[in-house]
């Protein structure tokens, strides 16, 4: 029998922290990855924004974006089904996931525009 993991329920309090935790991890990874690569082997400035580093970090950003969007949709759908406290918690978690999704998109946007190590 598969054991139910309680904190995956959309109304669990952990859901309120999960989306922004994912945002934070993504943020630290992108900033840390950029800093380490720029310190160790920076791409040539003339390559502009189209470097392997931008590509990798951009790919990670897209993956995070997709995952957060899915989590948002999951909570919003649950909020529509539920009532009372369960609805409140799911809707709140959905809102926080949505903000995290938009946060990844907004903060990650410069990856399309700027050379990484200049």
């Amino acid at each position, binding site marked *: 029998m598969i054991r139910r993991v309680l904190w995956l329920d959309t*109304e*669990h*309090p952990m859901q*309120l*922290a999960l989306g*922004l*935790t994912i*945002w*934070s991890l993504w*943020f630290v990874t*992108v*900033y840390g990855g*950029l*800093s*380490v690569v*720029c*310190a*160790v082997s920076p791409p040539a400035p003339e390559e502009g924004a189209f470097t392997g580093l931008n590509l990798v970090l951009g790919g990670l950003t897209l993956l995070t974006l997709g995952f957060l969007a899915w989590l948002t949709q999951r909570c919003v759908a649950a909020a529509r089904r539920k009532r009372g*406290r369960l609805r*409140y*918690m799911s*809707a*709140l978690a959905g*809102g*926080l996931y949505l*903000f995290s999704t938009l*946060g990844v998109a*907004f*903060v990650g*946007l*410069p*990856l399309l*525009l*700027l*050379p*990484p*190590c*200049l």
Partner: protein
Amino acid sequence: MSDTQVPGHHAQDKTAQLHRELEAVWRNPHGWRALTVVNHSTLGLRFMGTGLAFFLIGGVLAMLIRAQLALPSQAFMTPEIYNQVTTMHGTVMMFLFAIPVLEGLAIYLIPKMLGTRDLLCPRLTAFGYWCYLFGGIILLSSMALEMAPDSGWFMYTPLSSGEYSPGKGSDFWLLGITFVEISALSAGVELTVSILRTRADGMALHRMPLFAWYILVMALMIVVGFPPLIFGSVLLELERATGMPFFIVEQGGDPILWQHLFWLFGHPEVYIIFLPAAGIVSTLLPVFARRPIVGYGWAVAAVIITGFISFGLWVHHMFTVGIPHLAQAFFSAASMLVAVPTAIQVFVWLATLWLGRPRMSLPMLWILGFLVIFVCGGLTGVMLALVPFDWQVHDTHFVVAHMHYVLVGGMFFPLMAGLVYWLPLVSGRMPSERLGRLGFWLTFLGFNLTFLIMHWTGLLGMPRRVYTYDSTMGWDIYNLISSVGGFMLSAGIAVVLLDLALHWRYGRPAPPNPWEADTLEWALAMPPAPYNFASLPTIKSRHPLWHNPALGDEMARGEHALADASHGRREILGGEVLTGRVRERIHLPTNSWWPLFAALVLAVVCIGLLVRLYPLALGAFLVAVVMLLRWAWENGGHPVAAPLGDEEGDELPLHSRTQGGPARYTMGVSLIADGAFFHSLLFGWFYLWSVSPQWRLPEQSPLDPMLLIGAGIAFALGMLWLERRLRRLYAGNETRLALAFYLIAAFGGLHVLLLGVLLWQADLAPTDNAHDAILLVSLSYLLAHGLLATVLMVLQGRRAALGYVSTRLPMEPGVVALFWRYQLGIYAVLAVSLGVLPRVIGGGA
């Protein structure tokens, strides 16, 4: 007639008896024994009173600064004194006033708002207060000794390092502030756990007062945000005292590491100060708008978002240090992003005012002042988030003006609103409208005159932290206006203080619930009894007093839960995190000398380090550890706490009789703080490794792999055995429990021994290079944790032998097991980071 009177009299007698019993259990002692008080109301007021005293000292320093800058080429202060005054003004206001006073307010209010009698760890509250007081006194004594810190309130290296600040000033700052931060962390941990686990029955998260949401997020931010600065302070003090070169480039260190560690704390700190103040606004505004807040859920979401995003902004204080543009763009975008949750709150407040029927009372005046000033400060914040603009005004008075708009507007004005609002609860008297309004207008106008003009001074190029300027620069008139405004602001605060002084004698007696508020603190007597509520309510609404205005009388008559103190214990209810449903009775410790004594001995440690009498510091530290362990001894089933009895009362178990009491949460949240410290350590290691230009990994790793693996295996075996014994204990088997715990502790002892040998064999040269220095700090961190885990296990063995841990008292080993799991986790991560990665990636063989 007598038929109806007799039951009434009987009920009154019963109520009076209940209050007498509660008073006997909860009352504060007088005389010298008042120093042992652990009650949250008393300590909250002590925090706020002490914070007020420090505020006045910080305010006088501000006036000295404005006097010096009022006219060009003044010699009122020498440059050396000016540097000390500016450093101490910022330090006092941030560390000794803003945070402690808000913590004090939270400590005072949170149990009352949650419908309970005290915070979960009353002795920790007292310990936090004494650490704050002694740390503050140590820090301020530097001014009296004319050796105050002078490197700015953020103590940038290398200016604050031994080479450029050879005096004691930086040491006073580093040691004093770290001492004060123990207090902040104590409050952060216990506020978090109290809010999660001690709410009134039925107060589910979605019914919790908004103020509690704000304080919950603030407390968690303290828990995560303060350890990086503590870690940075430890490194800098080690560098200054022993020469370990963490921030010296030539020896493999990097001064920018300090900036990262400081601002990892420093930027969230701004929101740690702002959030409780915004919580005051979200509490008061609906009361004076006479309607529930519009968008409760939006406000909660905004607070949570702020708590997270504010940790992603720290580099915006470092836009000019030379990091890549793309990295700057990340932080610039995140800095703009944080304006969104703040804007959500502003719109929530405006919508509540718009849809309500606002009353313009004195607290509302301060809130409107807050809205105007804080919105302006927020807008200049968005301007500063733009990298090119930041470059132009970096280190000018524009930044000083912005910071004061955000901090004074965002914290001081709401705090004043809260002070006026909750004053009747403390004193039983109403504030004076006339003097209060005069105080507000002088403060508001004086503030704007000082700091609005300062934006211009900054845009004209006047740098901060310069003690004077030449008349030809064209800054004369702006500085003069700012100084006049500064003194007007001081006059406003003097009027507020006069009002406060007169209030206790001449204030009009307050009626019950004078503002017609909805939250539970207004159901209390004014001033409240030390036990707050004679019985604890069941909550069915977000606005309990609007839902049932008679709730206060019902609770006072003992018609709700826990209306009994004949057992002599201080009891509160413990509930589920999400629903607030009651699951246990929590027995709290009573008044104690241990918090004061432990803090006093830690003050001796601090002074010993300051004057570099290291044997004294070490001896005092060991005494402090023994004291803290002795303090922890009187818990659970100990005869002083709640000895096992034949009759344990009603169906709700005492928390020490359960497997998952609130102590697990307290340990868990404390380990989050410890984990933040550990992550800072890890960050320091990898940062120096990847960024510091002179960092050198040795050819041969100094860490013996066999010892490293052996120490890990020893601890892992002890851990596995502990988990197994825990499962058996929970299943009802306590056979040879004490022996098992002693043997598990022996594995811990072996772990410590092997680690000690590893450290000794490594033959590190920590004063020669940063690599060895940080290795020494990391191994010492592991050793200290291993030693503590072992000692705690030995004590568990002793407690099991004495019968304080058993199948009927199974709580404690589970709490200690959390610490063991933590030690195993950090050991594995550090072993890989320090021992394996250098061999795999490069440097070591």
